[in-house]
């Protein structure tokens, strides 16, 4: 069995054993979104306007929470060091780690999104736009986020620092994604925004694995 596939299986099994921990970012996502109707009032028109933005901000925040455990356990028990020493190219390993992380902790959030669309009174066109932007945009969150996670993994106090490093970098994604949903709300085409997000995703896909690999080496010193 190729080491890449073995790693993929191992990470999925580990994630399955840690179901309780995986639930936490999901619960956080739900909680943040249910705070907004309570805070700004249950008026359907207002919720519809702020809805896409709220969902995206909540998605960014909860993905930040989930990202922290991307390399943490492997760093603590030393298996990360073994991965760096192994003959398998480190960028490929990094890509597998990011992929399993996306599958286990971001995909559930996307599965929750129809429910949230109902919470915030989004109409059907808006929901489809939201779903597409989430599907294209969240891998970007994971890829770029993993660079900062790899840099801070040895610090033992990633939380706030991680947010400080990553939130400014996620701003273009937030702008394009919410503008796509807004365009959908006005029944305008939104392929341009999607193209931008897809372009950023491909760019990150090409470069981020190498940056993550370098960052892991820096952390491991």
């Amino acid at each position, binding site marked *: 069995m190729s080491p890449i596939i073995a790693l993929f299986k191992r990470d999925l099994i580990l994630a399955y054993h840690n179901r309780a921990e995986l639930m936490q970012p999901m619960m956080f996502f739900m909680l943040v979104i249910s705070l907004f109707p309570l805070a700004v009032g249950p008026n359907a028109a207002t919720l519809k306007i702020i809805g896409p933005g709220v969902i995206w901000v909540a998605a960014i925040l909860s993905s930040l929470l989930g990202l922290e455990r991307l390399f943490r356990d492997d760093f603590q028990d030393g298996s990360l060091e073994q991965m760096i020493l192994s003959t398998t190219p480190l960028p490929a390993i990094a890509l597998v780690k990011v992929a399993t992380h996306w599958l286990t902790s971001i995909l559930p959030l996307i599965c929750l999104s129809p429910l949230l669309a109902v919470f915030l009174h989004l109409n059907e066109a808006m929901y489809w736009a939201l779903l597409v932007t989430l599907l294209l945009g969240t891998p970007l969150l994971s890829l770029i986020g993993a660079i900062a996670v790899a*840099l801070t993994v040895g610090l033992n106090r990633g939380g706030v*620092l991680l947010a400080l*490093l990553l939130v*400014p*970098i996620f701003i273009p994604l937030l702008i394009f994604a919410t503008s796509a949903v807004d365009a959908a709300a006005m029944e305008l085409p939104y392929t341009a925004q999607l193209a931008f997000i897809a372009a950023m995703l491909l760019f990150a896909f090409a470069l981020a694995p190498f*940056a993550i690999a370098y960052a892991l080496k*820096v952390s491991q010193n």
Partner: protein
Amino acid sequence: MWKWLHPYAKPERSYQLCQTLLPWFAVLGGLSLFVGTMWGLAFAPADYQQGDAFRIIYIHVPSAILSKSLYCTMAIAAFVGLVWQVKTAFMAMVAVAPVGAMVTFVSLITGAAWGKPMWGTWWEWDARMTSQLILLFLFVGVMSLYKSFEDAQQGGKAAGVMAMVGIINLPIIHYSVEWWNSLHQGATILKMGKPSMAPDMLWPLLLCIVSWVLVSSAIFLLRLQNEIVRREIKRPWVVELALQNSKQQAPNNMSTDRG
């Protein structure tokens, strides 16, 4: 060129280079800052539309121009450090970051002060102001990442990676925000063909920009020297330097022993 540049990878040589350059930058910068600011604030003619309120341009524009250049400087230093493993490049990166953050902060404050009389609001979620704010966050991120590491060399590498990620993102942020919302007045100096500014107002502005470059370079050199000494504190050449300095100062101030 490599033969000429290579010695400066050694912190001692870089320190000496800073020492030679510092007085030039400091004196020329201080002088031109004084002349340019006085010329702009007191002697340049008032704007026919904005009155005297426009004069803040002599602080706002230099700081705004410098903020992004300083981020680029930081990223280039990070790149040199990451690619060629030059130790002093990381020190330069660390030294330039707070200068850049401060300049960005100044441009935001002066922008707010200018926005109040002109747009009637301290803060507007306008494209340029927003991207400037994000730039400040990027500077702060790099600085706090560096501070979080105990080992300065490791911290330098980590902050360098983040600076590189930031510089790739900077144009994306700039254009996405531009597209999102724009209220800011167009560029004053860099227009195709003739600048849309009277020469009487333009010259002090150009002088101000030059002086800001010189002054921030001087601050940067000073910070770089400090950083080099801080990291190399146990090396023989630093000890020797400290001894020399204390010998020079000893006859002047015997009573206050600062060594």
